[in-house]
């Protein structure tokens, strides 16, 4: 790779080695007939320069911050600034979540990540019939700007960047955040953060969609446009593979389907007349850090290289920042077990390490009680410390892309790219991601992978420590799990009543009417109108209710 390796000499050595292997295998066969990564890529016994013939450093790796970005997107990476430690959090009411956010910030977390409850994610107020039993359970309940103000009480929006996991109603929550900034005296152009805003993966794997694809893409591109002009430091989308992986996909599928989603978003924005060199700078991504360590590190590098190529060659993007794949990572929740929860601390550590060696820009580490409930204060503290120990004690953050050049890592990086490109090519042939989703192509692949994994675990082919091997009898009764107060719903309903009494209801009605009219006209950007409604304390449910009436609702596609 560096200088010309003497391949014939190596092959000779290899022959002798394999003869010795054969002798060893007679005495002791290997643990398995063949070894494969979690994503089914065959793993060689040993990798050597012959696996990297054809690799060209300048063309395929390059230097950090420079095309093709394989080695990282910033020139100094973690030597300049560590990844953002950003724990996803939120539950109950805005007051309770605000407390948790201030705790995490005091413990050294460097960015906020907001989890909303299901009614909020699906555009329902806490007093909607569908919200019954669900308020505050998987995240914080936010019905109006009033709740948002409480959520960020004593948190300076000019100093803290916030990521919000919100998709279908992202426009509304972004508007709320902007309004909170306004009240704090922080202008829009100073706000920094991210909204997930990735509807395609909702259809594929996550299920918290509201509207059908066409109007959803319109809302998303409206946000791209609005932010390009008004909120320049804001990441307008977090194109997600995390959930696709959690739904059961392989690593290569995670990359392929995420980037294919990305392609669909760029195309939609382009069609609207937006310049990829501009909005491309504020696209971000979100990946999973799963179990298979080597495959995961390779995966992140492959994704970076592929996206650089896609933006450059497919979309003609020349701006470097717009070519770069910047991403957040979360360790894989579905790998954590209910059995022997302490083991999860070890799993998360390995996964976090893979993400760091893969060059992530920000990271969430799961807590050990993941399979049982939302994180307790103690367990989320350990998860955060895991990141800090890696950052300050392991040394891996002190040099960039340390595993580059490793025969296995570069080989796997190439292999994952190859497989992912095949999937993307098939999706292209179908006519793009929207059609692939409609046909169920993506979902079927994910479900098939999920099912074969389940079969592998049940047959003992795949081992999960504590679950199908090394089990112990245990009792989780004294685990001190987080319990969400059932009265959250009631409290929110009360707050809504008071809100509706205090606000100018006529004004709100007018703003909602304006949204309705604009919804019917694709050429109008909805963001300013949503901002007006939010400013006047129109509720999320009211705004989404109007959009539901105008846009309709999506029904899922079942391919089983």
């Amino acid at each position, binding site marked *: 790779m560096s200088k010309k390796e003497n391949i014939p000499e190596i092959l000779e050595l290899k022959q002798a080695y394999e003869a010795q292997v054969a002798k060893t295998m007679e005495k002791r066969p290997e643990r398995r007939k063949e070894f494969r990564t979690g994503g089914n890529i065959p793993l060689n016994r040993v990798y050597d320069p012959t696996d990297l013939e054809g690799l060209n450093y300048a063309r395929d790796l390059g230097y950090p911050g420079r095309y093709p970005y394989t080695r990282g997107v910033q020139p100094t990476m973690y030597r300049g600034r560590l990844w953002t430690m950003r724990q996803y959090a939120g539950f109950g009411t805005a007051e309770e979540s605000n407390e948790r956010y201030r705790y995490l910030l005091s413990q050294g977390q460097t960015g906020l990540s907001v989890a909303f409850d299901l009614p909020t994610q699906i555009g329902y107020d806490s007093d909607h019939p569908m919200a019954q039993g669900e308020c505050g359970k998987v995240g914080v309940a936010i019905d109006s700007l009033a709740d948002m103000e409480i959520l960020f009480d004593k948190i300076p929006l000019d100093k803290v960047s916030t990521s919000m996991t919100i998709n279908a109603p992202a426009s509304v929550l972004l508007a709320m955040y902007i309004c909170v900034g306004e009240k704090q005296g922080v202008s829009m152009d100073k706000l920094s953060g991210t909204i997930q805003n990735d509807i395609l993966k909702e259809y594929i794997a996550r299920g918290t969609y509201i509207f059908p694809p066409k109007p959803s893409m319109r809302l998303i591109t409206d946000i791209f446009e609005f932010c390009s002009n008004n909120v320049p430091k804001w990441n307008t989308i977090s194109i997600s593979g995390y959930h696709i992986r959690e739904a059961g996909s392989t690593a290569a599928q995670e990359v392929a389907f995420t980037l294919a989603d990305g392609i669909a978003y760029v195309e939609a924005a382009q069609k609207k007349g937006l310049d990829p060199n501009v909005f491309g700078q504020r696209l971000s991504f979100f990946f999973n850090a799963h179990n298979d360590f080597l495959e995961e590190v390779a995966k992140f590098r492959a994704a970076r290289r592929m996206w650089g190529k896609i933006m450059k060659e497919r979309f003609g993007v020349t701006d470097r920042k717009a070519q770069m794949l910047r991403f957040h990572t979360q360790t894989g929740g579905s790998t954590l077990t209910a059995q022997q929860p302490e083991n999860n601390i070890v799993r998360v550590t390995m996964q976090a390490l893979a993400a760091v060696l893969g060059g992530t820009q920000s990271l969430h580490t799961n807590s050990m009680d993941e399979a049982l409930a939302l994180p307790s204060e103690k367990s989320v503290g350990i998860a955060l410390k895991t990141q800090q120990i890696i950052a300050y004690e392991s040394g891996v953050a002190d040099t960039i892309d340390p595993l580059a050049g490793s025969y296995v890592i570069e080989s796997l990086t190439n292999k994952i790219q190859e497989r992912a490109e095949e999937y993307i090519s098939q999706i292209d042939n179908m006519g793009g991601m929207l059609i692939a989703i409609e046909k169920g192509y993506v979902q079927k692949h994910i479900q098939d992978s999920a099912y074969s994994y389940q079969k592998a675990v049940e047959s003992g082919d795949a081992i999960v420590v504590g679950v199908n091997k090394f089990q112990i009898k245990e009792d989780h009764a004294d685990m001190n799990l987080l319990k969400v107060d059932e009265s959250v719903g009631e409290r929110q309903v009360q707050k809504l009543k008071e809100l509706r009494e205090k606000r100018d209801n006529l004004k709100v009605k007018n703003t909602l009417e304006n949204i309705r009219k604009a919804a019917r006209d694709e050429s109008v950007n909805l963001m300013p109108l949503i901002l007006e409604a939010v400013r006047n304390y129109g509720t999320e449910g009211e705004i989404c209710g109007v959009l539901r009436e105008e846009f*309709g609702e999506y*029904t899922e596609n*079942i391919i*089983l």
Partner: protein
Amino acid sequence: MSVLAERALRGDVRALARIISLVENEEPEGEEIIKHLYPHTGRALIIGITGSPGAGKSTLVDKIIAEFRKKGRTVGVIAVDPSSPFSGGAILADRIRMQRHANDPEVFIRSMGTRGSLGGVSRSTREAVEILDACGKDVVIIETVGVGQSEIDIVKLADTVCLVLVPGMGDDIQIMKAGIMEIADLFVVNKADRPGVEKVVTEIKLMLDLIGTPDWRPPIYTTVAEKGDGVTELVEGMEEHRKFLKQSSHGEKRMKDKVIQEIKDIMSREIAKKIEHSWENHGADVHVKAVFEKEMDPYTVAHSILKNIISENKLREGASER
């Protein structure tokens, strides 16, 4: 008359559901109940919806149900999905698209697996339709598997057959070749907001001209099922067809053919059962060996066994127990 049948006739949903299970599982009580319910059949408009997977049949059925409900009609739906040839099990997921009607007391939706039947419908689909008809449903919709070739079965069960096509799927030509075009009473080109609609409509018209339509010229509707566009017209078309069937001699012949087909199907089923049951009793093994060793031919053997079965004059197992 059985208690279950009485309850079902009075509108008890659980009883109705139970009866369908009885016939699906081929239990003797099921057949008794059908006999008692049969005189009450004949009121319902029976519609068959067929077409390739991905044509949007389920979404269309959901909108058709809504349309009929607007007119105050009660609706029954049988949604058929393929059973696994390996395990015999099935995942029945068609009702997902219609679930908003799940708790409308005037709508009854039932999912059925094909359970080994090769057509697009299952063996007991016909009986399930009759049960829904007898128990007062104004409209019964059968949604088939949509396998493409075996849609012919639907003609035996439905009075009005709708073939759903989609522009740009590339399979419209295949369907035309398979003769399915000839059984459709109405054509629906769904997802009509896609390019290629005109082409499909033209192709259908040409095919209809080719095969000739002396009695009923199938109308062609364009719909966007997701939005509900075109469904009102489609449903009106279905009622038109029903009027035609009731008033024409062609219609009367078709209804009679349905009856003939049902009688023949029941007879075939009984005889097939008898053959299975009697196989052992007629020294089949010996005959099989003889044929295998080319000492006898299969035709002679078959005729001989059949003669024995018929001469025993037993058409039902356990007949002696009556």
